[in-house]
């Protein structure tokens, strides 16, 4: 199928970066830092690949590097407020066994910062 999740995401990322670079008057981006939660099912290698491919056509970003921080999934129990690491996508409180769990982190998808001059 002609879909590549990471490609669509990377296009969105580069749009955000380009807009912000213009409004801050940057002429060259040297680094882009992303934060992505594990729930997003993003493959970092594919993301890197898409970045390398797309940036070639954008002089502003062509020299830039990409850093991706993957956030673990953290849950918070609605019954006992215990906060814990969600492993194997099992949303169950290890303290009280409750399955009513809010996501504290793990669904992030944002540009943390850009560097340039």
């Amino acid at each position, binding site marked *: 199928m002609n*879909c590549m999740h990471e490609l669509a995401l990377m296009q969105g990322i580069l749009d955000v970066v380009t807009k*912000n670079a213009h409004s801050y008057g940057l002429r060259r981006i040297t680094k882009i830092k992303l934060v992505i939660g594990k729930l997003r*099912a993003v493959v970092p290698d594919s993301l890197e690949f898409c970045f390398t491919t797309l940036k070639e056509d954008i002089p502003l970003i062509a020299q830039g590097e990409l850093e991706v921080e993957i956030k673990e999934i953290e849950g918070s129990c609605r019954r006992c407020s215990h906060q814990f690491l969600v492993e194997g996508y099992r949303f169950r409180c290890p303290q009280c066994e409750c399955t009513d769990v809010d996501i504290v982190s793990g669904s992030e998808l944002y540009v943390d910062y850009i560097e340039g001059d």
Partner: protein
Amino acid sequence: MQIKLVSSILGVNDTLAAANRELFREKGVFVLNLMSSPGSGKTTILERTIEHLQHQLNIGVIEGDICTARDAERIAQKGVPVVQINTSGACHLDANMIASCLEDLNLDELDLLVVENVGNLVCPAEFDIGEDMKVMVLSVTEGNDKPCKYPLMFRESRALLVNKIDLLPYTNFDMDALEQDVRGINSAIQIFPVSALKDEGVEAWCQWLTQLVRRKREK
């Protein structure tokens, strides 16, 4: 120079989705975002659902498709209004695509709007379109490992339709294991085993859906 952004990549979409959601609330239309991988039988489920419900509810459909209008034609034969969105290659529908085709539907006359998303288990979960709920279709021929591969979609869906249960004897699909995995990710999810082809289990799903649609109408 470092510039702190913390700007969401999905920010623009989320703003548009909120506007859609407000419009749907005003009009009292319940919006269902139906998602699956390709070949899971989503369109057949939609056909059965329309047959079961069209005497009690006014239903409209938005069909998202990468390049053909085949599914939209099938739905149109059921006698409900259907709008086709050709995503020209994009692997998901977004809030803007939905907004731009709403003028082709008379929302005042609808109780239920079903958006059949592009067949894909990753991207559609990322893009809010302003729906009331996401529902997933998984067919038994796809195997058991989907929940761990696509956790976000299972986490965000209110219901899961497990389709093609008439084929269970011919697969090594383990329904108990699937239920366990899915409930591990989302303990509140409703699971409906169905065979759209044989019209099995569809009634229970339709009753549940009708309740939700009515509840929104009454607000």
